[in-house]
């Protein structure tokens, strides 16, 4: 079966975001961008399923600016077979991304779509679930284990309080949690090879999707700053401070 893996180009997770002084957003000029970490896990899982003989082809998709090509090339270097860039300079909301992915899924007919559980920029945690609703497929969100068995997939999910396993009829949507796997690094030869793998460029209009935002960002501000604390000299002083606050056994 074919696996579709949507990936997003985001501010690198090690970079501390800076809110723009005019309150219009986070400053993304001249900062390091990378593949969303949860999406790396999604690509890795697709590759592992291909290595097990479960998947036959992996198609990576990204919705974003021309530079999202780099993110797709990373996916290709890890082991994806081909890529589709749906190019737009607009910020596209999860609902519109899900609609684009639905249109791509209609054409590609994948057996599984594996997405990251959330992007670390907007922290929405919506796209996979929305795609599942639009396709009418089952969803296995926050996956920490994925086992394809015949015409179904067993997904172990990280839930509050522990783990649960659900059985989903294929085709299905899976979103990855951090502990699903450890993504591989692309080797230099594979990075070179990825340059010649196919990458189609499309636009949202090709899929008939209107990307006009439904949610307007009125402003973006710094979170409240915690007032500076103090360093205590020893355990006795800490105990005194805690007791003064009413914390004791």
């Amino acid at each position, binding site marked *: 079966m074919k696996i579709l893996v949507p990936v997003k180009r985001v501010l690198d997770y090690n970079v501390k975001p800076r809110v723009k002084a005019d309150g219009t957003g986070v400053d993304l000029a001249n900062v390091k961008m990378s593949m969303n970490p949860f999406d790396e896990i999604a690509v890795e899982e697709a590759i592992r399923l291909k290595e097990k003989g479960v998947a036959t082809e992996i198609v990576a998709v990204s919705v974003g600016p021309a530079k999202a090509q780099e993110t797709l090339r990373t996916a290709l270097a890890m082991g994806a077979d081909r890529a589709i860039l749906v190019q737009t300079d607009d910020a596209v909301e999860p609902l519109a991304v899900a609609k684009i992915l639905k249109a791509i899924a209609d054409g590609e007919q994948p057996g599984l779509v594996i997405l990251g559980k959330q992007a670390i920029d907007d922290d929405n*945690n919506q796209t996979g679930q929305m795609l599942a*609703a639009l396709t009418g497929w089952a969803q296995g969100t926050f996956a920490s284990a994925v086992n394809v068995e015949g015409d179904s997939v067993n997904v172990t999910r990280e*839930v509050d309080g522990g783990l*649960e396993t*659900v059985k989903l009829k294929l085709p299905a949507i899976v979103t990855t949690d951090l502990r699903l796997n450890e993504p591989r690094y692309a080797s230099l030869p594979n990075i070179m090879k990825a340059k010649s793998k196919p990458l189609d460029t499309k636009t949202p209009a090709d899929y008939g999707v209107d990307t006009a935002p439904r949610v307007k960002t009125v402003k973006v501000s710094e979170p409240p700053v915690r007032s500076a*604390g*103090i360093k205590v000299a020893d355990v*006795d002083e800490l*105990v005194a401070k805690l007791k003064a*606050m009413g914390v004791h056994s």
Partner: protein
Amino acid sequence: MKTLVWVEHDGSAVKDATLAAVTAASKLGEVHLLVAGEGVEGVAKAASEIAGVGKVHVADNVAFGHNLPENVAPLVAELMESHDAFVAPATTTGKNIAPRVAALLDVMQISEILSVEGPKTFTRPIYAGNAIATVESSDAKLVLTVRGTAFEKAATSGGSGTVEAVSAGGDAGISSFVGAEIAKQDRPELTSAKIIVSGGRALGSSEKYEEVIVPLADKLGAALGASRAAVDAGYVPNDYQVGQTGKIVAPEVYFAIGISGAIQHLAGMKDSKTIVAINKDEDAPIFQVADFGLVADLFSAVPELTGKI
């Protein structure tokens, strides 16, 4: 505005996260609840007693027994024909169901709201809590998830909601529940605990976590937490994890022990009222947010603290 709130429950009791969602919903208008599950009469009764609740819709059906979103989302979408907003707690259950509902209604969801600023205006954290966005929806109906630590919990008594059975929905036939492994804990739930004692990678092993962190938590009646590093190293189960990708907590006192304070961890706990950090590295970023910092070897300082408090 008529708001439908998803009641998260364990089959017998309403979970605390729901109570925060009720408070958020009450800022929008009339609050209705949805209790879905199998054999949920008791939960429905408890839900009807939550302060400020109007109608309680009860969908008692085996298909809703394990919150499978394939079965539950169409049920919610149908009830949304007579409601203006759907509100769910931002728990793993709420996050699983609400976006599926939003897409069925063709609306954008607003995730993890921190405040209600107007009928369609909310604040929410982005970039792991490093920025706060004020956003305004232009959709006809609202779908929201609510960060539990950002709202007071509604009182569990004093309400007089009317219970009404819902016959809609059933098994979509595309998913089923196989099993669950729920970590057993005799202590307060992490997300609602007043005190949390969290350990990080510096502990070095699960034995040391048991030996150093657990006694302090026991003494304080605290919940146990951990950094992602400690979880990944296998010191504790992953549902202990506090952070952007784990649980978001805001207790009265948060003890960060042997935790450096990466931004992903801070995203999960920096709204705690008081933060106490114990770390031997005086340059650890955790000290920039800690109200009380102690630069010391945790293996001697924590047992001493446990003994003296």
